């Protein structure tokens, strides 16, 4: 427990110091994106890593969060914070309606079902032009303000995003370290035994699905008010695949893994800038390679290998 506290403090310290020390806007921007991606990975990790349910359509919730706030605060002009609440409720509501039948599926069918859902939402973003601005995107998302504070790119937004990330990590921890977390681990391990002990597997999966949808919507909200322009392609199939990749890299069922996955996936395109066209190949190879060689995730896999290596030496 104490070790965990040290880790947490260390993590907070690193983020705070980074925010103060780094003045380069580009770097701050990249790190803000890491924070947003961490939120996405955290949410999907709860679903994939802990509840053991794959989703290939989670980009939809990210998009719902972004478009909901864009429309409500941009077009209708209501307060973005109120829009955030609406966005979360909308995402959770959609997750409930879609999750109820979808989470009864398993394996490939679940993969296809979630993929189909993601595609439908993506098509809606593209076709409902009067609300979403259609394929050319939505312009005119207001910046976030809180009293006298204006969150424009750079430091203030960096801190805002990472504060939310802390909150989300805290929430995930609490949920995992509880009866719900135990039940999740149980249905992931042996679903029939968990059910025989009275765990209502379906409603638990649904709860986690809705929770991860809410985190996705928050990430979408932060993304929208950060870049101030959104288009459907940011929330399509590739977005969903990126989210899955982050979770897979970080190792399913690990809160820190989500962070590592987000760092890798956010930095990779920046590092591979010259190879923009090869981005897809790299993502795909990472996904395949990790799943084939280290199905427990890159972080865990590398750590285990290192431990084995040290033992031998």
């Amino acid at each position, binding site marked *: 427990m104490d070790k965990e506290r040290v880790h947490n403090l260390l993590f907070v310290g690193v983020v705070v110091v980074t925010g103060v020390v780094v003045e380069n806007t580009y770097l701050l921007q990249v790190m803000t994106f890491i924070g947003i991606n961490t939120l996405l990975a955290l949410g999907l990790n709860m679903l994939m890593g802990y509840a053991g349910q794959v989703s290939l359509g989670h980009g939809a919730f990210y998009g719902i969060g972004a478009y909901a706030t864009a429309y409500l605060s941009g077009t209708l002009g209501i307060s973005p914070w109120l829009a955030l609440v609406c966005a979360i409720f909308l995402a959770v509501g959609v997750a409930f309606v879609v999750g109820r039948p979808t989470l009864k599926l398993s394996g490939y069918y679940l993969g296809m079902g979630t993929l189909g859902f993601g*595609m439908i939402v993506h098509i809606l973003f593209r076709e409902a032009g009067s609300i979403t601005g259609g394929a050319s995107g939505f312009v005119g998302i207001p910046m976030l303000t809180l009293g006298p504070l204006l969150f424009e790119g750079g430091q203030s937004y960096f801190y805002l995003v990472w504060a939310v990330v802390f909150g989300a990590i805290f929430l995930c921890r609490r949920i995992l370290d509880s009866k719900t977390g135990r039940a999740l681990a149980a249905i992931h391990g042996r679903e029939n035994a968990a059910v025989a002990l009275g765990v209502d597997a379906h409603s638990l999966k649904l709860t986690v699905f809705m929770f991860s949808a809410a985190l996705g919507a928050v990430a979408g909200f932060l993304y929208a008010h950060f870049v101030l322009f959104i288009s459907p392609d940011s929330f399509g199939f590739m977005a969903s695949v990126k989210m899955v990749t982050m979770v897979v890299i970080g190792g399913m069922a690990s809160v820190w893994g989500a962070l590592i996955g987000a760092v890798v996936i956010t930095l990779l395109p920046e590092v591979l800038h010259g190879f923009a066209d090869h981005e897809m190949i790299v993502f795909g190879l990472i996904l*395949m390679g990790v799943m084939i060689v280290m*199905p427990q995730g890159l972080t865990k896999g590398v750590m285990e290998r290192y431990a084995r290596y040290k033992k031998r030496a």
Partner: protein
Amino acid sequence: MEDLLQYLFSGISIGSVYAVVAIGLSMLYRSTELINFAHGEFAMFGAMGLVTLWGQLKLPLPLAFVLTVAGVSMVGILFERFAIRPVKDPHPISLVIITVGASIVFRGVAMVVWGKDPVAVPSFSSHGSIEIAGAVIVPQSLYIVAAALVLAGSLHLFFRYTLQGKAMTACAVNKKAAWLTGIPSSRMGLFAVLISSGSGAIAGIFIAPVTMNTYDMGTMLGLKGFCAAMIGGLGSLWGAFAGGLLLGILECFGAGLISSGCKDAIAFVLLLLILYLCPGGLFAQKQADRF
């Protein structure tokens, strides 16, 4: 009235392509219980291969056809050998992620090789279009339908009458029992991949002259093929065929009567409905009848 007939013809034509894609997916599932999320990319490779070999290198059409199918089948075999077989934990979730990963790699490779802009090839023959009761049919549509029928028919005969086909069916019904009688299930798996990727390529080749061929055309084709296979009941040859036709016709009517924007959405809504309401497929009678 002419419109409706036109929708029907277009639907049958595009539906035949879905049918071929669905047959490939379905046959792979039948023999290996694997659903390949990268299947659509085989069709994309088929179309792109034809674009290069026939459209650009000007090889004779039959040669280009054979080379493309052979090439794509090779890709399929490599894929099975290096990405599916080494998996330590063949859990559906792992396999979903691996095949999704593969589909992205394939797409990325295609983008690098063929670029981002759509490429086109001419129709297989220069015959003029045929007019029936005011509706127009381009010859390519007829070729597509014929190709789908020939493929489904020959697979049907293959599974029914050849030793290899029967062995594959045996494998599908009970892998262990088949193995005990001396059928090498790994070779059957490889053969299933061969059939699957080859038929994927054929779908791509026949659709190439009538669509915009882009590196990402496979995603939609694959998903719609899956939808069609689900409609017909996964693992059923003629179910996949009928499912493809049905999906194609529904899509064309939807696009014509409602809006062209929602055309793609129809397939996905249908997919979800099938998954929710009758995951065994529309024509499923009993589980045992699937084989």
